[in-house]
Every structure is written in C-alpha cells, then in structure tokens.
C-alpha cells in the first residue's frame, strides 16, 4: 500500500489528533445525527408504505419504481437540488438521505413479509387473527430480521454518503477529509476516513445485536 507518506507528510500526526479531540467528537456527533435522523425518517415512511403495498399489490411496482428513481440520483446532485430551498439547514442532507433509505427498507420489509410461510398465516387465521391484526401481530414480527437487515445496509450506506454532505456545509466527518485535502495535510483526511469506516462497522455490528435481542425465537430455533 502506498498510503504511507506523500510530500514527506505522515499518515497520522498524533499531536494534531490530541489537539482536536473536541472537534473530532463534534464531527462524529454531527455525522451520527444526520445518519440517525435519516434512518428514523426512512423507517417511519417505509413501514406504512410497505404495509399498504403488501395489502394492495397493484401499487408494488409503482412504489419500487419511484423509490428506485430517487435512489439513482447522485447524492451531490440531490443535496445541490435542495440547497437553494433548504440552504444550510440539516434538511439539505436529511431529505435526500431519507429517500435513499426508502428503496432499501421497502425491499427488505416486503421480502420479509413475503417470506412468512403460508402455514403460519393459516394457523394465525385459525386462532382468530384477521386482516390487519394478523399483519401487525404475526407477519410484521416475523419480518423483523429482514427489516433489520435492511436497516444495516441503509446505515452503512448512509455513513459512507454523509461525507459528501460536507461539500454543502453540512459538517460531519467529511469536513476533516476536505480540510485535509484543501490544506495538503494528510492527518485530517486519514482521521476522517478511518472514523467513517469504523463507524460503519460498529453500526452494522450494533444493529445485528439489536436483531438478536428483539428476535429471541430465532436464536432458540438456531440452537435447537
């Protein structure tokens, strides 16, 4: 690897890190805020859409088509389209990031609901669960692993996208990357990049843990 030194500059100058612990913490918090709000909004929007589409199959193609087009719009372009309207407020980043989660979450929620075995549905009906109650009390819980799998993909994707938002003044760890690049100073670029990758790995692991905790029945069958 050639990440070592360029222009005689070292990969990480630890004294810079020591002097900037406060700012590093602040950028991490900004990064997490953008990711967290976008994920939350994404889930709040995708869940009802998925449940509707699951019940009324005709809208499935339309919902996936529209979210697919939104997903195709490059992030810098999406931020830039909003910039004249939302300016420096966090919505400039949160609105496009939310739209990116929609396709991922919608697909995973639908896949989870589709995969509920017919026997289970019949048994639920036999126990008196009808339409919407069955959907919420039986099908949705069984779809949780697939939904969380979607959240994991969405979280890792967003963590890697937020750096681009630094270009339109949204803060986050991308600020370090751009700052290092603009000043020809390697350390901030390295620190920003490494923290983003670590954040992605931790978020993925954390959500996997959540999945284990909220679906204890999976663990039991896995062990049996």
């Amino acid at each position, binding site marked *: 690897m050639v990440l070592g030194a360029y222009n005689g500059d070292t990969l990480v100058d630890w004294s810079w890190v020591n002097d900037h612990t406060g700012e590093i913490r602040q950028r991490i918090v900004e990064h997490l805020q953008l990711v967290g709000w976008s994920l939350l909004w994404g889930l709040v929007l995708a869940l009802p859409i998925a449940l509707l589409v699951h019940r009324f199959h005709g809208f499935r193609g339309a919902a996936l088509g529209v979210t*697919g087009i939104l997903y195709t719009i490059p992030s810098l372009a999406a931020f830039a389209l909003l*910039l004249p309207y939302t300016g420096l407020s966090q919505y400039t980043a949160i609105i496009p990031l939310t739209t990116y989660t929609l396709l991922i979450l919608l697909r995973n929620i639908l896949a989870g609901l589709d*995969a509920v075995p*017919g*026997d289970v*549905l019949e048994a639920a009906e036999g126990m008196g669960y009808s339409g919407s109650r069955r959907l919420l009390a039986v099908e949705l819980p069984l779809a949780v692993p697939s939904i969380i799998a979607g959240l994991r993909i969405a979280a890792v994707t967003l*963590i890697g996208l937020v750096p681009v938002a630094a270009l*339109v003044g949204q803060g986050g760890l*991308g600020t370090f990357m*751009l700052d290092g690049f603009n000043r020809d100073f390697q350390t901030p670029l390295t620190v920003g990049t490494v923290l983003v990758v670590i954040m992605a790995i931790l978020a993925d692991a954390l959500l996997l843990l959540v999945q284990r905790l909220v679906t204890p029945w999976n663990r039991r069958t896995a062990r049996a």
Partner: protein
Amino acid sequence: MSIQSILDWFDNGDHWSGPEGIVHLLWQHVQISVIAVLVATLIALPIGLFFGHHRRGSFVAINLANIGRALPALALLLFAVERFGVADPPAWMQTIGIGSIPTFLVLVALAIPPIVTNTFAGVSGVDPETVDAAKGMGMGGGQVLRRVEMPLASPLIMAGIRTSAVAVVATATLAAIVGWGGLGRYIYDGYRVQDDQRIFAGALLVALLAISVEGVLALVQRFVVPKGLRLAARADDDDAARRPRSANPGLAPGAAIETEPVVPT
C-alpha cells in the same frame, strides 16, 4: 429561485458551448464513465466467472461488496489525488476519455466489486442439476460456462454492470472537487460563487444523466438476457401476483434481476 430563472439559464447559449459549456462537460462526464465501466468489466467479469464456475471464494465475493459499501467514494478520490497528483494524463489517455488519472482509477475501483459479486452470485447460483444435464450432453467445462452458466447468469451480471455504471456516473460528479471537469463543475463552482441557478441546473443535469444511464442499461439488459429467462420472469411475476403468499419467493431467475443496488454515491 424560480423555475423561470432555471429555464433562462438553460436558454442562454453561452451555457452550452465552450470549455465550460454543457456539451463539453457532459461529454467529459460520459467518456470517463464509459471507459471506467468498460475497464472494470474487463477486470471483474473473468474473476466473477472463474470463481463462480468453480463455486469457490464466496466469502471473498461477499466481503468485496461490503468493503465497497463501507469505503466512502469521496475519501477514495481525495486519497487518489494526493497519491497520483493532478497532472494531465498522457495524450493517448486523453483521446480515449481519461482526463484525470486519479478519478479514472477510483471509478474503476468502485465499479469492480458489484460486477464481481453479481457475476459470482449469478454463475454459482445456477442449478447444479442444470449443469449436470449439460455435462451429460457432452459439454466440457468451458462450454458449460459459455452456453449454460453465462446465459442463465446474464440478468444478474447485467444488474451488476448497471449498479456500477450508476455509481460511476455519480462519483464522476465529485471529480470537480479535485479540479477536474464533468458536470460536477456546475455544482462545485456554483456553490463557491453562490450561483443558485448554476448549482440547480448542474444538479438537474447530473440527476437526469444518472437516470438515463439506468434506463438505457435496462434496455440493453432486455436484449442481452435470453428470451426464455424473460418469459420465466414474467410467469413468476404473474404467479406472485395471484398467490402473494408464496412461501418461497425470490428463487426464480426473474427475481434475481432485482438484486440490491449497491451504493448511491
């Protein structure tokens, strides 16, 4: 900012010609994207085919995709520029559309994982009984790959190339930050001089380009994927609509077309 002011921006002939004009920047953007996806395909396809055919290396294929997802494209680009500099590439590279070496390298690097992963998934996912039948008919390894596995994997392979192409077009937008061209220039320059019309127009052009690339490749896919598979996909869709409670969805070849797009960039 009004719609009229955007229309006026596009109506201005000065914005279409010259080195900062739409025609030139769009062409730069398209050229580097096309060459990057081509080179990435030439590298990724043989790798995916080899490991898929021998049904080995799934661990690497899956992790390659995950690493691709976690590494921010912006960081890769900045690192590449610091490493390789911004000097103009040799003339022969410029003639084939490579106007910036670090940008080109990053685009190729980003485009490889989805193609490898999808090709691997497509080829290794071919029903072993189908492969056995082909062998029983006297086909050798190479023939099985070319005449059975590749056609059956074509929806997934094409999906991988589509994913890569869209990611490449999106990432090429970032090249403006490191001093090169492409449509990202409008967004980046517009932001620096606080010209809302230019930012918006540039963003609109980039978004339209990405959506067009996706659309064009979807069309190409229709020609590449064998007719039998398309019919199977449609039959599966009809089936799914009639019996939405199918306990085992997503195993038909048609379902494979809808794989996870990897990353918006």
